[in-house]
């Protein structure tokens, strides 16, 4: 006789995954319920298009749930889900050749010349006024500032400071050295502070 399923709402991710592997459809639905909002939010902030974000989120979950048999329980399930979601968004952005360079230049640029050569002017990658108007949900100043970051910085800052993932986990799921992740987050925070500098007084009042 099969083992009774744990109450899914209160079960850990690993327990829900085990139940799903045993064929419980409710467990699959529970995994989707748990991660649909954070995964959709991450992808939506990366690609800034609701329909596209839904498609990419759907692809992420289909990939995750169809590959549950190959999931290794020694890794955090959430990291695995975010890794697949982030890859889906980054792959899409790369295909569309969006935002490939940073305002500060490549993070690997170690000389002033290289930084200069890999930098872009703000106008080149700024979201158009039309996009900003069309995109009411992501229209706040901070959302627009996040949109100006290069995709790698955006992933890092969203995972670290919106999703609250530790540096080590971000390094693991983005397959980047820990030092690189720290650099990306540092630069992203600098860029955001610069971009939102005019709100300094407002912030200090809070």
């Amino acid at each position, binding site marked *: 006789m099969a083992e009774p399923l744990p109450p899914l709402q209160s079960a850990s991710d690993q327990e829900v995954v085990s139940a799903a*592997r*045993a*064929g419980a*459809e409710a467990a*699959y*639905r529970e995994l*989707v*319920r748990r991660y*649909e*909002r*954070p995964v*959709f*939010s991450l992808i*939506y902030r990366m690609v800034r298009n609701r329909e596209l*974000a*839904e498609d990419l*989120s*759907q692809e992420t*979950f*289909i990939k995750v*749930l*169809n590959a549950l048999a190959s999931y290794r329980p020694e890794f955090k399930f959430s990291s695995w889900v975010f890794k697949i979601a982030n890859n889906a968004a980054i792959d899409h952005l790369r295909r569309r050749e969006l935002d490939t360079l940073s305002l500060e230049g490549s993070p690997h640029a170690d000389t002033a010349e290289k930084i200069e050569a890999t930098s872009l002017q703000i106008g080149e990658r700024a979201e158009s006024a039309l996009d900003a108007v069309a995109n009411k*949900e992501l229209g706040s100043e*901070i*959302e627009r500032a996040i949109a100006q970051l290069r995709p790698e910085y955006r992933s890092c*800052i969203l995972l670290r*400071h*919106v999703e*609250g993932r530790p540096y080590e986990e971000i390094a693991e799921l983005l397959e980047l050295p820990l030092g690189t992740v*720290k650099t990306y*987050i*540092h630069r992203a*925070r600098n860029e*955001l*502070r610069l971009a*939102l*500098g005019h709100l*300094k007084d407002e*912030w*200090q009042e*809070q």
Partner: protein
Amino acid sequence: MTPWPIARLTAEDLDAFHSASLKTAAREHLEACAQCRALVEQDRALLARLASLPTFEPSEGFSDRVMARVELPGRAPARRFAPQRVVLVATLLLALGASIGWSLLNRALLLAWVDSAAASLGRAIWMGVRIVATNLTEQGFLVSLRDALSSGGRVVLAAGVLLGAYGAALYGLRRLLAAPGSVPHAHG
């Protein structure tokens, strides 16, 4: 005041400034340095804003759309062939088998039918050829052509003109297809 390398402050340094476990040296520096204090305050406000960003929800039915495309371990695999297609293929195979069987049993009759059909087809083709040829030979331009080529000299002249035109066309085509560099004075 303890000097602090602001330009080299990493995200981790800033995190340390935000944390309660701030080292004495750092705390002293912060108390004395307005520039660093402003930076730390701004960074703290930024992190608070980031942490309070809303989460977004996909549209209704998202979970159902995902589940419709997930292969559940216990779920019967989707049927690869629709029943109507299976019936159609089976009927065609049966008909084919029956016709082969009948042909083997009635070879003589089948050969007679084939002979008769082949003869009828041959006659129809020959009749078609004759009709086309008759129509062609009765065309007005053929009558004028026959008149124009009524003597040996005219035939030779016409053949010469045709050959000349063919040669000119060949030469023109070769010039047209040659690479620009190999054509003399191609660049003026």
